[in-house]
């Protein structure tokens, strides 16, 4: 049997999903009972869940998906101090590429959002950067080659 895909999550990302899971379970329970859940009147509720509540099958499939994520999740922790000079998941990296400076944080696929600088460890650039240190020139190879010069590595996670 093929190995199940691992979902790498930061502590913050895992907590957000757990909160969503608890809220969706409550909404589903109330929906099946035909009640108006207390949660709907809470200011704390993410407005997106109200949309999910309209579609019970989507609500259910999202709950199953979250359960699968929890079953196969692995937490991203900061490495030991002596290894914090090496790029690993959770690292925030300052790079220079084509003469421009940029900053990425390397995360798992589920938390990736390149628009805000969160790059997936499964993207070609994310994969290439893993394991490198400050001063390394990382080549992302293909017909068109790009060189990422690693300028700084820091771990903002605990």
């Amino acid at each position, binding site marked *: 049997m093929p190995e199940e895909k691992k979902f790498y999550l930061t502590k913050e990302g895992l907590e957000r999903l757990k909160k969503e899971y608890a809220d969706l379970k409550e909404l589903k329970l109330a929906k099946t009972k035909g009640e108006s859940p207390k949660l709907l009147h809470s200011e704390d509720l993410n407005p*997106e869940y109200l*949309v*999910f509540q*309209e*579609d019970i099958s*989507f609500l259910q*499939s*999202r709950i199953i*998906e979250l359960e699968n994520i929890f079953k196969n999740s692995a937490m991203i922790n900061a490495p030991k101090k002596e290894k914090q000079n090496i790029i690993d998941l959770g690292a925030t990296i300052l790079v220079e*590429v*084509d003469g*421009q*400076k*940029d*900053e*990425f944080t390397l995360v798992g*696929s*589920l938390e*990736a*959002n*390149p*628009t*805000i*600088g969160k*790059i*997936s*460890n*499964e*993207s*070609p*650039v*994310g994969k290439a950067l893993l394991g490198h240190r400050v001063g390394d020139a990382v080549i*992302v190879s*293909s*017909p*068109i080659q*790009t060189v990422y010069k690693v300028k700084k590595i820091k771990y903002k996670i605990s």
Partner: protein
Amino acid sequence: MKEFLDFFINTGTLKRKFRKGWLVHQIKNSESTAEHIFRMAIIAWILGSKKKLNLERVIKMALIHDLCEVYAPDLTPYDPLLPKNSKKALEVLKKWPKFTPSLKIKKYKNKYKSELEGLNKLISKLPLSLKAEIKNLWLDFEKGLTKEGRFVKQVDKVENLLQGIEYWKKYGKIQHRLWMRWIKEIIDDPVLLEFIKVLENKFC
């Protein structure tokens, strides 16, 4: 039926809404939002069929992902760097736009807010269940909540890349090296990465 007619008339305006990214590149007869949606839905369906995905959800999501642009502005990654002077704009386009982490987050939130408002306005008169379905699909696309959402979000970028490379071949006005660099930072889906490799080998 009146609410559907009004909705179809409004969505039809995307046939003539030309994508801002190409306008700033001064591409002649550039594509409209509806044309982008059309090919994106085809790509999502065909490449999506190589994965274990709910294809109905995938195709619907591709079809609705930019409907918000009936009312919301079409923003490019270069905003707010672009000057009004078109010659100066071409200079800006020679580099990939880079922003500080806090500005990236601010831009992202502003875009999300204006697009959500646009979508809400467009679907406001539709029946509740349809309104909920469209909003659910759009939120999934924006937030990458499901595997379908994460896939379609990346297909959007891949269609954009393909169009950019085609324009580069035809007009030479696109910085294709920067585009290929960008796509390798943002795509992590194995099927789409395989497709990009084929595209790169053919054109670059």
